[in-house]
């Protein structure tokens, strides 16, 4: 969120005025002046705008760095709308998870053209390649992994029923059976056959672990979705896929190879080996990580990543969204397929390959 992209459009003056009025109403300020409003780079699915606003009086008196989060032109299936994401962020903030403080939300399209919410802008970088190969950060990374483990356990301490989160998809929807059905339905519509994914999905079907008591899962908890300012964790971002689920799903996702960036050898998010991450998680959760269950979810993570990669390129191929990064992401599906083979085929690659 620290990098600024070239602006796709300058919001009309009346939009800025409407936004200023909205912020004043939410904060009981007598007046709000918007000093800066520009898009931030990095949200493939959502659009984030940096706002610097000066509040005259009210709960946010003074100059405040904020972020406005709204939907990108085309979304991917299974993501929460902005008001729902706002509610999840509020629940996480209330549970003591390190997140940017959520402030206001609106579904009034008259203000910014589409529903949005406002949160505080936290400092630092989420740039995954920078984090995984910064020599200055290197000695701090095991400590950061441990901290992230604790944060994840704090998220998982939020359990249903939870009146404010009643809209979240049911646990049944996140069960492997439902995800497998979703993967296959997608592949049936996809023009290119993906035999490796079919093989991996078949393995998943044969190894589904028994159900657990569901918890709040972030469902995209990984390097690239947390902000670091030096060695300080300043916020866990991008809650649009949150839902009830198996806590090991988040653990498998964090550790899967698709999210290790510059350091494929460091199994906890490319920042450390698993031990500090698991240690932090277990100390906060008060219960041990179950490695075979985490392995199952890690295989599922590679399948899910591959499907998401294909869906991202569909946004160009089918949705017509002119975005080179999305178009190229489809090529990453084969990286996930290699990982599925490496995880599940004990014999390894034949010499002829």
């Amino acid at each position: 969120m620290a990098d600024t992209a070239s602006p796709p459009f300058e919001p009309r003056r009346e939009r800025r005025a409407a936004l200023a009025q909205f912020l004043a109403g939410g904060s009981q300020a007598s007046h709000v002046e918007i000093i800066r409003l520009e898009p931030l780079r990095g949200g493939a699915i959502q659009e984030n705008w940096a706002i610097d606003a000066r509040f005259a009086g009210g709960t946010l008196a003074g100059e405040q760095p904020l972020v406005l989060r709204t939907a990108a032109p085309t979304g991917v299936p299974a993501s929460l709308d902005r008001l729902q994401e706002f509610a999840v962020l509020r629940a996480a903030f209330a549970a003591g998870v390190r997140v940017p403080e959520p402030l206001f939300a609106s579904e009034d399209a008259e203000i910014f053209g589409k529903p949005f919410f406002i949160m505080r802008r936290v400092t630092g970088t989420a740039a995954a390649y920078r984090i995984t190969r910064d020599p200055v950060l290197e000695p701090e990374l095991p400590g950061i992994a441990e901290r992230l483990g604790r944060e994840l356990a704090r998220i998982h301490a939020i359990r249903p029923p939870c009146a404010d989160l009643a809209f979240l998809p049911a646990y049944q929807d996140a069960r492997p059976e439902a995800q497998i059905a979703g993967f296959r339905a997608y592949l049936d519509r996809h023009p290119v056959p993906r035999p490796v994914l079919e093989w991996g999905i078949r393995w998943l079907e044969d190894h589904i672990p028994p159900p657990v008591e569901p918890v709040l899962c972030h469902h995209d908890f990984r390097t690239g979705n947390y902000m670091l300012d030096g060695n300080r964790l300043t916020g866990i971002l991008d809650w649009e896929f949150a839902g009830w689920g198996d806590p090991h799903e988040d653990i498998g996702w964090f550790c899967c190879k698709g999210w290790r960036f510059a350091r494929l050898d460091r199994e906890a998010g490319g920042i450390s080996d698993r031990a500090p991450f698991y240690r932090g998680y277990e100390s906060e959760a008060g219960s041990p990580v179950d490695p075979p269950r985490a392995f199952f979810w890690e295989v599922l993570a590679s399948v899910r990543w591959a499907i998401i990669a294909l869906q991202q390129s569909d946004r160009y191929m089918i949705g017509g969204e002119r975005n080179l990064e999305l178009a190229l992401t489809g090529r990453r599906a084969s990286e996930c397929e290699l990982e599925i083979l490496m995880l599940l085929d004990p014999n390894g690659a034949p010499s002829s390959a």
Partner: protein
Amino acid sequence: MRDLPTGPALLALARDVLLRDLLPVLPDEAALDARLVASSMAIAEREAEASAHAPPAVAGELEKFYDAEGGETASLLRRLAHDLRTGAFERSGPQDDQARQILWQLTISKLRLANPRFLAANGFR
């Protein structure tokens, strides 16, 4: 017969100009897009180069596996995908092994075009 330099050679040169000459003078906010353009050009170059040579070995392996000489690769791949979904080879050790070998070949040959660096980072040439 086309004139020289070939399409892949032009792409390679254009990519070199982009990365060496243009990238250093582009504003920071355009650097990521420039790198994405360079990656796209590299994929296109490798694909053009590969298609100028023999079809990938995996096509032949698929034909052998299904005893379907001259069969269309896309429809054989679709058949393989369907068979793997239903576990068609799970009771036959040799067929299961052969199918898995095809999966490895298919994946490695795709990554040679899409991301040879990732392949190398995982210990494959």
